[in-house]
């Protein structure tokens, strides 16, 4: 009997040890790095080799894309559409995705896993932003804002030839005027090819441009679940349309980084996080390439508007599964938001940290130790923005995403059609075409 008891005790102990060794695999869809070498993936490896190994957690990245793609995938999976992917344990999204879910109880309420003390470490505004219907479901890990990126190498050449300076880009009016001058300047470089003006400026999110623009001019951008189309909208439209019709604005699809990469545009306004995708090289059609310097500056403002800029940055949602899996996922998130790791992560991806301690203690040290000039310039612009701008947080509207998609698709299309009409009509048609296409655009948006 004693022998059997001893044997039993031994085997049960051994079995517990073995079970602990079988890791829980946590799958992640994130957006940090897109198709490039993602700094978050390196951090995840670091987690897997340290805390993960100790606690039997193995975090696996199964998709790195963008929040819109994740939005579509999450909705397809949540609605159990045929061919939909299985939801991962963790995914990055904006509250708008949570609002669009048929049932948000599929997500973990972080209040169940974070103590009051742990929650108070986050900046309160970020926790508030991640709270949907009283449930804290979007955990902030990094926040970004909109920044203006300039290909300084080419801009200097342009500046020398035309007298336009970087300071002219401080206001939207100045920027679009510069874009018009740039279009004329580039068109004039090849006199034998007519109408081959190059675009100086590319904006990643016109929805943000109009939204922050209207709000900064003291007018509401939304009316109910539609757009307000007040006079401020027109103020934002006109300089953009004039520059676009003259060829100074990039109107083809894709992200701002693409046309900067091929030298087809030289100034962009995009998320600070897109720093990762800006290459230090421009490749021209004959495969020659040129090393360039990318500098960052705060986002332009309207002459009569307030200094206001969009605050961006999605957060992590945890999908309900078993208590063990949820705990493992939260363990990873807690590790990622520890000031030290958080700052390491954000400064590689062009974001800002999310906890007070990280902001106060770790970030200044990290900025000082930055070596890459591109990143030094970005964080300079970031600090400048933080000191001088008011951050604008978009409202939680159910129609937000559909309005955003519709505006993005149509604004470029209408302006591109306008550009063709302008080439046919000539300088005299500028005002008329601008107004005509604004009306058409408004009509489409109000349908």
């Amino acid at each position, binding site marked *: 009997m004693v022998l*059997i008891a001893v*044997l*039993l005790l031994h*085997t*049960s102990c*051994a*079995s517990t040890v*073995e*079970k602990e*060794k*079988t*890791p829980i*695999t946590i799958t992640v*869809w994130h957006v940090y*790095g*897109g*198709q*490039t*070498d*993602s700094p978050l*993936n390196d951090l995840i*490896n670091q987690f*897997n080799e340290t805390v993960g*190994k100790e606690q039997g957690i*193995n975090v*696996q*990245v*199964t*998709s*790195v*894309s*963008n929040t819109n*793609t994740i939005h579509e*995938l999450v909705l397809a999976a949540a609605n159990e559409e045929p*061919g*939909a*992917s*299985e939801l*991962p344990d963790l995914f990055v999204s904006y509250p708008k995705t949570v609002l669009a879910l048929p049932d948000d109880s599929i997500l973990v309420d972080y209040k169940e896993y974070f103590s009051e003390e742990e929650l108070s470490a986050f900046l309160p505004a970020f926790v508030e932003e991640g709270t949907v219907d009283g449930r804290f479901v979007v955990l902030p890990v990094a926040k970004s804002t909109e920044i203006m990126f300039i290909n300084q190498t080419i801009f200097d050449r342009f500046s020398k030839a035309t007298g336009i300076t970087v300071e002219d880009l401080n206001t939207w009016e100045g920027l679009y005027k510069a874009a018009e001058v740039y279009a004329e300047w580039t068109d004039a470089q090849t006199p034998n090819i007519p109408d081959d003006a190059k675009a100086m400026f590319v904006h990643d999110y016109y929805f943000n441009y109009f939204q922050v623009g209207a709000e900064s001019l003291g007018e509401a951008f939304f009316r109910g679940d539609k757009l307000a189309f007040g006079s401020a909208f027109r103020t934002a439209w006109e300089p953009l349309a004039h520059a676009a019709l003259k060829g100074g604005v990039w109107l*083809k*699809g*894709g*992200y701002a*980084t*693409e046309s900067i*990469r*091929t030298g087809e545009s030289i100034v962009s306004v995009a998320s600070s996080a897109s720093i*990762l*995708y800006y*290459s230090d090289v421009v*490749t021209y*059609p*004959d*495969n*020659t390439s040129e090393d360039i310097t990318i500098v960052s500056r705060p986002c332009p403002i309207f002459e009569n508007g307030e200094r206001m800029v969009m605050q961006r940055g999605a957060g992590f949602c945890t999908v309900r599964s078993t208590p063990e899996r949820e705990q493992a996922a939260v363990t990873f998130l807690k590790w990622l938001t520890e000031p030290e790791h958080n700052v390491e992560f954000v400064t590689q991806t062009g974001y800002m940290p999310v906890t007070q301690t990280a902001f106060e203690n770790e970030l200044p040290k990290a900025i000082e130790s930055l070596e890459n000039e591109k990143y030094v310039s970005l964080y300079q612009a970031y600090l400048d923005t933080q000191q001088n701008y008011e951050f604008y947080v978009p409202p939680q509207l159910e129609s937000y995403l559909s309005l955003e998609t519709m505006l993005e698709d149509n604004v470029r299309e209408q302006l591109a059609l306008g550009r063709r009409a302008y080439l046919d009509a000539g300088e005299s048609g500028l005002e008329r075409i601008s107004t005509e296409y604004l009306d058409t655009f408004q009509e489409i948006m109000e349908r």
Partner: protein
Amino acid sequence: MLDKLKELRMLNAFAKRQSMGMQRKLMFYWVSMILVIFMAVILLLFIAGVFSRDDEQLHEVMELHLKNGQDHLGNHLENLTAEGLNLSKELSREIEGILMREGVSLEEVNDNPELLLRLQEVMYPLISTTLQTGNCNGAYAILNATINTKLDGAEHSRSGIHLRYSNLSTSSLINQTVVYFRGIPDIARQKDLELHNRWNLEFDIDQIPGCQELMNTPLERPAECYFWSRRINLKDTWESAMLLCVPIVGSDGTVYGVCGVEISALYFQFSYPTVETQFGSAVTVLAPVQDNRLLLSDGLTGSVNGTYLDGLETLLIHQGRYYNEYDTGAEQYIGLHQNLLISKGEVEDDIWVVAIMIPQNSYTAYTVDKQKTWIMIALMLFLVLLSLAFFLTRKFVRPITDSLKRFQQEETLEPGVFSGISEVDELAEFLNARARSQRLEQGELPPNIAELFDQFIERKCLLTEAERNILRYYIDGYEIADIPELAFISMSTVRKHNRKIYEKLGVSSRDELMLYIDLIRRCGRLQELF
């Protein structure tokens, strides 16, 4: 030793002299029997191989999974190779057509952006179709020409198109976004495709080992020589992939370039999920074997859920009877592998295998779990048998001990009470009979007579004080006629009392009363009447 034996013998003899309870003795016999039978059963099970069947079962399960994996992966790669060969033929026809129409050789395409664009325009639909019809996440074609021969590194820069799916999150390829990884951007703009974050105009063929050699070797048919490259990191991205390299062969044997499809590590991971077996998570691996080592970093690893594999390990192979062991140095895996022919006429003589691997820890945990179950069952059975033995012993011994107790407490056993054991009942009857005869021999009254006396004595309590007084005169030998004078009552009152006394004591006449009194006196119990 002899001393010890002697000691044991003495102990045994001592134990024999000791008196032991019947129940304990019977229990001891039962337990001995149970233990012997129990040991015999375990021995039989052991000989029958019940305890060593796990390895065989594991072998069978893994062989089945390996077979499935091999069939699935073999078909997958073969179909993709067929797609690649088909793409090569179609590209060859299109490229040849343009070169003939323009009256130029491939060499003259160098430094000619317009012609390269035209060539890429005809290549694009073919590559796009291959991407959409094949179970792959990328398709490409490289021309043996570059847009600018004067550039540094022009010797390994080659024009071509590489399309990839971005944002893959499942093995299903419906509705996936195509990105433009390599190629002239005008085509991306025409087709409304996003440029990859790390787009480049041309391929760096040094990144694809064997590609240069394939381009420089004249061939008759593309099927003569094609290969799957080892896994390469896609420059500046977080992804890595294996590329199928098929030569694009012109009708005169000139190799125009290389084309094929891509399977990325991520896509492979989605396409080959782990199989959950009772022994642990089984991971599918396609990798080359070199010097008895499985090189995961050069091949592709399926989903690694439930393991610590990261697809970059080099595993030392130890062949075994039922399964092989694969050792990373830090972790051990068990599994099986089988060769898979995936290339033809390849420059390097790589042996590729498809393998199924399970973490050794999971298997150990499984066997320990199973052993634990066996031990639990055995222990439970043992306890049940012990309880049964205890119950049966008690049931058997109880009537005997009860009877014995009764023997000790009572002088005679009640007749008609049976123990259920004939021998015990016979013994009881025998003892009763013997007790009866003994009592008679000792002058004791027969019980029924004694009973009559007892009843008589008991009834005296029913008498009143006056009646008891009169009874006493009779006991003292007085006649009825003496009573009125002695008790200061009339004769009629005496008669009345007499009637009551007879009635209460259950006698019918004075003679009967006097007989009782005489007999009781003789038995020496007369004082009980007072």
